[in-house]
């Protein structure tokens, strides 16, 4: 059977204006990769954020990072201040991966 490795999955829904800073942090902290769903809409504390946008001001992005627990913790730690004043949520779960060298 294919060997599986336990990792953490972090999903971040955040307004597009903040995505760049968060991605830079993710890279700085040592994660080996990330995936972005560039255009999601939604509703949360800050009201509706939909697709009808001239600028990116009302656009959300979904950022997904799979990482070892230790790096995941570092990302979570640093997300809190980065999200201050911005719309965004952070969701963590347990996953398994194949091809450990990617993470």
């Amino acid at each position: 059977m294919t060997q599986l490795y336990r990792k953490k999955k972090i999903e971040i829904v955040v307004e597009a204006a903040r995505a760049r800073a968060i991605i830079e942090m993710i890279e700085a902290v040592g994660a080996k990769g990330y995936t972005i769903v560039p255009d999601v809409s939604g509703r949360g504390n800050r009201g509706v954020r939909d697709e009808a946008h001239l600028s990116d001001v009302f656009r959300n992005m979904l950022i997904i990072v799979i990482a070892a627990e230790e790096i995941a913790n570092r990302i979570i730690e640093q997300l809190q201040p980065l999200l201050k004043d911005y719309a965004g949520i952070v969701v963590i779960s347990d996953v398994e991966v194949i091809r450990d060298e990617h993470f």
Partner: protein
Amino acid sequence: MDTLLQLALANLVSPMVLFFVLGVAAGWLKSDLAIPEPISKGLALYLMLAIGFKGGVELEANGLGGTVVAAMALALALSFSMPLLAYALLRAATRLDVPNAAAVAAHYGSVSVVTFVAATGFLGYRAVPYEGYLVAMLALMETPAIVTGLLLARRSKTAGTTKPQAPLFSKELAREVFLSGSVVLLGGSLAIGWITGAKGMAVMAPGIVDPFKAVLAVFLLDMGLLVGRRLQDFRTVGWPVVAFGLYMPLIGATIGLVAAHAIGLSLGGITLVAVLAASASYIVVPAAMRVSLPQANPAIYVPLSLAITFPFNLIAGIPLYHAAAKWIASM
């Protein structure tokens, strides 16, 4: 006054304004009419490319007259200084706190490309000529106001934060300000029009001149849909702020009229400078504010400039400023 009313009515029944109104109605009634996002971005790019290129070609044709430098200096001065006035008014007349007042103020120092384009359409319809290089003013006025806005916001920031103060101008903001897509496209197209002149225009005209007004009409339909869907945001904004969105353009236009007359622009030119001064940004400045002044609430500044000042200028402002320009030019 008779002429003014006639102007306003004639403007109202142009296809551009009517498509805008159609859009507002459809958006407000929650019709599922929608122009796909990439198309509407494409139309915006088209308008900027076309207006920039035409300005460049006219610049090449008429040469850099004596007033050009004065006009460029005026553009910078207006964009840098108007947020100060706007900020003072907002702090006096509304309950907006420092970051929100600063953010709103920045929008009114900057400009709305589409309002400018609609004004050139208005002048074209009436065969009123204008100085081609005013497009360069448009490009120059887009971003300086952002700097003033951020400086105004500083005043409060120092108290709130414990961290050492971040530099006013982050790399991210610099990119937003100087390399903003609209600044690059307007400026670049202007330069290309200027370099290639009439020969270039012959190549580009069937694409960017002939269908221009029809494209503008479609884009205004789209803007209308956006405004219609955001009309309900009025409630968030509060009436004193809504009022600001109506009187600030009038103040700005007055300043623009006087200054443009002072540097010796033509009737068309005076009208356009008034429109620039009266209009507020809803693309470039919101994006910059969201990056650099996140404490300010976009649910205030976006509907204000998009759903109040923009329609006001489009429907009532342009003919009004043109009538005033006639009056001041005839003095």
